[in-house]
């Protein structure tokens, strides 16, 4: 496998960013990691994962869809779309990498969402294997191997060198663009590191969580479960879980009057919000119980029903650490599970 010494990472980043925009996770002042556009001198974060998921790159929190100019009775439609620039997201973890597959199933399904596709086409996802998974990790539950992430290209570290391999054409193109910096390396030590990671993954407290009892065929038994009341009772109805989630993709479309035109934009929305399904003449989901249920039913039952059993969760654990009241999908799964 090709590799580069870890102390030459700067050079690698410089090389990538010379030809296209590069995003890497960096440490923030408050200790959390976030993706930043690479600039000389930035150091790759050693944190397990970024605070926000990587979905923003393809599905940003707000994005302008179309502009209108109103003049008397006439309306002018202005297409504001522009071809995205090429960019690389470096250091995406296995869970987030899988989330793109899930988002693809929504946004690339007919009719294709051109906004999403535009960025997806121009973005190269370079993943990074995990070495120190946290107690909140449960990617294994969804068949994700944190030591072998997906993505266009993947990186692994053995503590001295960064190994890199392509998973597809786009990944290969990326590696070709930096090949002058890479050399062939021995993976023996790396394999040991990966084996160790997998050992740890097995020891994690959520290692035994399975999806065996969830899926598209479980609609009625879970929908009508009497656990929802208890589970949702302390839910604040905020959107934290939704917004840190790498797979949540509900959105709202809104118009903003700038004073000299209308901007129609879309923004993330949350099915946990009380007005998510509100109509002029009523709301089919009146209580937090129903809204809470929707989010988890969607991830654990509805999504798999439409997507060959694939779940709408990648086990990244963000909601586990960020929910203000510590209610999360793991607790829901454990409480609901009917064997």
């Amino acid at each position, binding site marked *: 496998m090709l590799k580069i010494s870890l102390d030459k990472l700067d050079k690698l980043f410089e090389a990538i960013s010379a030809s296209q925009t590069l995003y890497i996770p960096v440490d923030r002042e408050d200790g959390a990691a976030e993706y930043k556009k690479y600039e000389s001198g930035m150091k790759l974060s050693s944190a397990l994962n970024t605070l926000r998921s990587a979905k923003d790159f393809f599905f940003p929190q707000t994005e302008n869809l179309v502009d209108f100019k109103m003049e008397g009775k006439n309306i002018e439609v202005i297409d504001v779309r522009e071809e995205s620039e090429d960019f690389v997201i470096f250091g995406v973890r296995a869970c987030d990498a899988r989330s793109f597959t899930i988002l693809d199933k929504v946004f690339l399904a007919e009719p294709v969402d051109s906004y999403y596709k535009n960025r997806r086409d121009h973005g190269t996802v370079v993943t990074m294997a995990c070495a120190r998974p*946290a107690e909140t990790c449960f990617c294994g539950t969804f068949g994700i191997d944190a030591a072998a992430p997906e993505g266009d290209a993947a990186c692994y570290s053995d503590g001295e060198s960064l190994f890199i391999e392509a998973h597809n054409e786009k990944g290969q193109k990326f590696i070709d663009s930096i090949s002058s910096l890479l050399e062939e390396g021995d993976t023996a030590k790396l394999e040991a590191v990966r084996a160790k990671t997998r050992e740890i993954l097995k020891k994690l407290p959520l290692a035994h969580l399975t999806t065996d009892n969830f899926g598209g065929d479980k609609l009625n038994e879970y929908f009508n479960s009497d656990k929802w009341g208890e589970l949702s009772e302390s839910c604040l109805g905020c959107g934290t879980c939704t917004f840190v989630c790498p797979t949540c993709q509900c959105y709202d479309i809104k118009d903003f009057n700038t004073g000299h035109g209308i901007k129609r934009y879309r923004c993330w929305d949350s099915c946990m919000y009380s007005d998510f399904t509100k109509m002029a003449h009523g709301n089919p989901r009146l209580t937090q119980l129903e809204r809470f249920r929707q989010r988890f039913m969607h991830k654990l039952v509805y999504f798999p029903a439409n997507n060959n059993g694939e779940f709408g969760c990648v086990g990244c654990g963000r909601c586990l650490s960020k929910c203000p009241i510590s209610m999360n999908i793991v607790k829901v799964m454990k409480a609901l599970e009917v064997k």
Partner: protein
Amino acid sequence: MQEAMINRAKQLLADGAVNRVIGWKRGEFAYDITPAVFETAEELEKEFVYDDFTAANVSKYLVKESKKEGKILAFLKPCDTYSFNQLTKEHRVVRENVYIVGIPGGPKLDAEKIKAKGITGILGVKNENYTLKIDTVYGEEIMPFYEAILDKCATCKSKKHVVYDELMGEEGDVLDSNRFDMVEKLENMTAQERFDFWRDQLSKCIRCNACRNVCPACTCEKCVFDNPNSGVENKAPADSFEENMFHIIRAFHVAGRCTDCGECSRVCPQNIPLHLLNRKFIKDINSLYGEYQAGEDTTSRAPLNDYKQDDCEASIVHERGVE
């Protein structure tokens, strides 16, 4: 403490004095505690928890719970009692339907602080003489207790319960806290520095509404930011202005009502020090209109609903501090 609380709760349930208990429920890990309502002794036995991680302020839940039938037992920490009192004052809770047991408060721990030390794979946390022994999948780690406490506890304003029906443990005092230090530090910066500081902070906001939804002062039937007819409805910060707008107006709406419970900053997934906005108002109110602690009582007039004929003019803002 936890044992005593469970026993007292069971007793009150058995006596029929209350028919529900609001407290905290243990989670998957040492730290992921969820506020919960318990109805039976069995549930209490099994899941009730009160430890170093039970930081959540449960008083806001009482807005809803106190309107249900019967009486609910609420275990309130000193800071929570201020929130409760403020809610009583604003007629948001039905005081008669709540039986309040005052319990000793923090300092409570912040799992994020432990994780920020690079400690991960946490399986258990033990407090031994104010040293935390943390059991992880990577082995045992140690860190000083006080380095892991929540910011809101580090600047605790009071250990006194301002309302209760009974008290467990001893009554504490109002503390001489250093809570305005950071506000002062910012005040002493230049406008440009302050602007940069807040731009940096508020640009992190993802408008998840956690701060608002957890806030015991934010109990509006319909928030202006959710109301399409308010003219300021806003779901996501599409522009830096909207980040500012949301947080300024939210702080303004709770000004004089915010008890400084610190929940907003505790729950912010982006670690934005939102409490500084509220504290800025509190500090201004204290210095301009006389000391005022929201929630201290249920009768005093909130500073923004009050005035004195010789109040200072708004130009005081121009006259003081550094530019």
